[in-house]
């Protein structure tokens, strides 16, 4: 959803998306752990160590990710458009990866963070198995809240301005829209969502390290958006079910092909690539194409309820 507002709605090719997810994840982890090398954090090196309770640690993840977006936007977005911006963001993703992997004092290098306390299991006295089900529910609630939040933005005049910038930044600017301002807004919202998403990953799994976010993962997220349908939430749901669940996670449950350990993963990656290519070629609008917002729906939403003067505008 975060990438959808950046790419699907505002047209920013954020190839560093997974980097924002990772930052959110690390920060959530590091803020929920106690000071480095004490208690459950023994043997790990990291900054922060604030021992924040859920959901404040998650919020911290989102906020730091947004801050990173602001910095990136001021440096890169201000001057660069489309292709060049995409290249800068790919490199950003690689730089973030290398820093996290090699600079151990930051987030414990390649080992990553682990032993993250299970949120709220203390309050509800849950054991590990119960926690999985419980937290899946919590994640679901978060997803629902984010969905509602995003729908509200996308259906508002702000969302419309985002789409105008996607279609033609020159025209949007000529119409008096300060496109830089809107692009920053979009970047920050998207990065916040990425951060929260990353935070949920580390809370769920209890650990997070560099093997979980190879920069190439960004393209899986792009595949989700493109396969599902650019610019709408329902498409994202379809896209993530299809790409993430069926193609990325399901193969892990398939038995190995005898004599070719790991072959399935490679076939899997190829399948995602082929699917992406085929979608772009044959159905660029995605599985669930974004609908044009009709006059009738706009009138229903804004006008007929509150403004009686408008009832004489005929609707066919």
């Amino acid at each position, binding site marked *: 959803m975060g990438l959808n507002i950046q790419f699907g709605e505002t047209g920013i090719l954020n190839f560093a998306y997974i980097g924002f997810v990772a930052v959110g994840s690390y920060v959530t982890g590091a803020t929920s752990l106690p000071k480095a090398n004490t208690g459950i954090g023994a043997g790990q090196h990291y900054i922060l160590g604030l021992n924040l309770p859920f959901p404040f640690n998650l919020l911290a993840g989102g906020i730091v990710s947004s801050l990173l977006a602001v910095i990136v936007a001021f440096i890169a977005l201000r001057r660069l458009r489309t292709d060049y911006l995409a290249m800068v963001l790919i490199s950003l993703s690689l730089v973030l990866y290398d820093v996290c992997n090699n600079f151990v004092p930051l987030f414990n290098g390649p080992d990553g963070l682990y032993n993250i306390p299970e949120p709220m299991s203390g309050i509800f006295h849950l054991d590990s198995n119960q926690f999985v089900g419980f937290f899946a529910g919590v994640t679901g609630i978060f997803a629902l809240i984010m969905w509602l939040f995003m729908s509200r933005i996308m259906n508002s005049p702000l969302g419309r*301005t985002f789409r105008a910038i996607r279609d033609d930044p020159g025209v949007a600017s000529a*119409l*008096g*829209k300060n496109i830089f301002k809107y692009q920053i807004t979009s970047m920050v919202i998207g990065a916040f969502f990425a951060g929260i998403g990353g935070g949920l990953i580390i809370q769920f799994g209890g650990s997070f390290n560099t093997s979980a976010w190879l920069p190439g993962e960004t393209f899986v997220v792009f595949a989700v958006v493109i396969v599902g349908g650019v*610019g709408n939430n329902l498409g994202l749901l379809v896209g993530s079910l299809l790409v993430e669940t069926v193609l990325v996670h399901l193969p892990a449950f398939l038995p190995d092909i005898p004599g070719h350990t790991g072959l399935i993963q490679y076939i899997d990656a190829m399948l995602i690539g082929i699917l992406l290519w085929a979608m772009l070629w044959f159905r660029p609008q995605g599985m669930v194409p974004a609908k044009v*917002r009709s*006059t009738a729906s706009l009138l229903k939403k804004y006008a007929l309820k509150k403004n009686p003067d*408008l009832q004489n505008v005929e609707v066919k």
Partner: protein
Amino acid sequence: MSTNEIAIGAPILSCHELKKSFLGVVAVNGASFEVPKGLITALIGPNGAGKTTVVNLLSGMMKSDSGTMHIGNTDVTNWPDYKIAAQGLMRTFQLSRELSGLSVLENLLVAKRIQSGESLFNIFFRNGLVKRDEAVNIELALNTLKKYGLYELRDNRASALSGGQKKLLEIARGVMANPVILLLDEPMAGVNPALIDKIGEYIIDLKNQGMTILMVEHNLNIVEKICDFVIVLAEGKTLATGRLSELRADEAVVRAYLGEVINANTSS
């Protein structure tokens, strides 16, 4: 002084010694002129005279190399385009640039200049205000669409419109922003004759509502019919300004541009 206080016929938009070159090729070479308020002014000149570049400079899409420009008394030299739009100058494009993924109605709605619903804070905390404003905007947009004969197409994607319809959409979108000055870059290029007359009527109508119009136009019959004032550009410079009837007596203008047209008219 705000642009409201300027008398009709007094200059509202002016530029002085505007220059712009692209990699050494001089496109605009010291253009200076004034656009009178509340009238329709034509910007004419042979191909390559720098008309579109002047429009790009005036609307802030390009920065000039030197020279100044004013809207009313405000110096807007090299302001970015969105700020110039906020000063009340709106432009259309020679090749229609519709917002292709948006519906025709949304193309208009997006053009409204100040919208409460474009603020993230308002969307979540002042929803009532956003809804009221949006209702007013929708009504205005639907009425504008009716006026320009695009009402039936309101729910189509803008990319699905025909060339002529896109031209109308460009104008309607500009009008929706309710500008003080409307810059039309060849509003009638590539449009069938019946629609040309229609667009001419729309433009006169806008003038009657008090809008200032500067249009780039090639067809001198139209210029003669609807424009009050003419600016002739040649080789990036202002060659002459005045009424078309006066300019016909000007030898330099005739040589640069009008010659063939006048000859054609007299011989027929």
